[in-house]
């Protein structure tokens, strides 16, 4: 009874969320006449599917055993599954003294996850409002440094990712730079380059995975 009720709530909210998700993009089209053509929309879709598509499918499946059905509905709507939802759920279970994997554990986990959504949505709202007021007041030194946002962001993120498998990390960035520099010179379109480099990252990771497996079976 409880489970089927939760699934019903979950499916209804996911369905509504799918509609709401597209409203701003459509609004900009209707209100300001800025509507990409159908072929551009498909190109954008192809690009995000090629880069994030694996995560769309694998992440919800990988987290399901820990999140359960209800947790999945909350987590994949509100996001921050690994760094906010899961810690909040397991802390709630620990403090309430219930075992994860039991019915009581799931109920308390759900309460914890819901609380974390209310907390993080409130914080993001406050920060966005304050942030948008503060940005125009920042000194010129800070606002002109905004031109460096993306290189600084991707430099830091890449280091963090590459650290986990340093060989694949170094090989991939070298491969990406070479393809970028020479691919750009011979006029390969940006979208194709993206796909080739993402695929290259997968192949390099696969290569080291196979090598490690061989080594492990030999020793």
């Amino acid at each position, binding site marked *: 009874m409880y489970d089927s009720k939760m699934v019903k709530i979950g499916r209804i909210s996911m369905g509504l969320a799918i509609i709401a998700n597209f409203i701003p993009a459509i609004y900009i089209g209707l209100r300001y006449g800025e509507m990409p053509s159908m072929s551009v929309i498909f190109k954008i879709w192809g690009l995000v599917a090629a880069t994030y598509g694996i995560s769309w499918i694998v992440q919800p499946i990988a987290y399901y055993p820990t999140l359960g059905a209800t947790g999945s509905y909350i987590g994949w*709507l509100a996001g921050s599954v690994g760094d906010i939802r899961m810690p909040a759920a397991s802390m709630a279970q620990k403090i309430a003294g219930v075992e994860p994997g039991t019915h009581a554990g799931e109920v308390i986990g759900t309460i914890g996850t819901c609380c974390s959504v209310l*907390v993080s949505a409130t914080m993001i709202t406050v920060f966005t409002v304050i942030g948008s007021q503060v940005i125009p007041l920042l000194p010129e030194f800070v606002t002109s440094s905004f031109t460096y946002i993306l*290189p600084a962001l991707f430099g830091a993120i890449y280091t963090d990712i590459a650290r986990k498998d340093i060989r694949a990390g170094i090989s991939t960035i070298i491969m990406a730079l070479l393809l970028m520099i020479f691919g750009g010179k011979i006029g390969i379109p940006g979208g194709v380059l993206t796909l080739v480099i993402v695929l290259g990252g997968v192949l390099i990771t696969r290569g080291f995975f196979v090598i490690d497996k061989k080594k492990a079976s030999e020793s």
Partner: protein
Amino acid sequence: MEFQQMINSPGLWIVSSFLVIISVSQAVVFMRAALKEASSIGIDKDRRKAAIRSASITALGPSLSPVITLLSLIVVVGAPTTWMRLCDVGAARTELGVVSLTSTLAGVEVGSAAFGSQAFSYALWGMALNNFGWLFVVFILGHRMSKVVTSMNEKYDPAWVKKLMAGATVGLFGYLLANQIKDMAMPKLAPAIISAAVMYILTTVFKKNQRLQELSLGIAMLVGMFGAQLLFS
């Protein structure tokens, strides 16, 4: 200035609020049902309260950490879009990644004056289509997920599936970084190198400091941006 007004317009705040409202309402409805269930299976009021308190406190720290990337996103796509997209799945870095991808398609650079209403509409579609991927998969599979998990684990080596995701991530961010520094020239190389070095130090030397780990991305970015600004202004 017109573009800034458009991306921060009251109309955009309103249409961006729908998804946030749905997410918060979902949490409230789920929470009421779970609280009722908890009381009916014999979890007393004190334990329910303790669960609520501890979960809320736990959520505070990691909710604080994306502040710097949140500000960056406001600079690029405006406050309403930032608000909506950070309240849904996809961290600020994912959203900035998507904006960077769609801008390449629009033929403009993120943060430049050329990033106008067309690039913005591309970015909105990119973020919506990316988000749609997760929503759709969970909408379709959510209620029969346990079967999917079993058959996935039978068919594929879980260790490889994990590596596959890691490979796609390293490839994507490798592309995004390479796209920024492809000219191999200053000044753009400087923020990338400085923030990479700071990130490396923060995640290795200060590995044990949990609070610092949560803030590491923000700190590394700021040092990289300000460092480059100091060198080249």
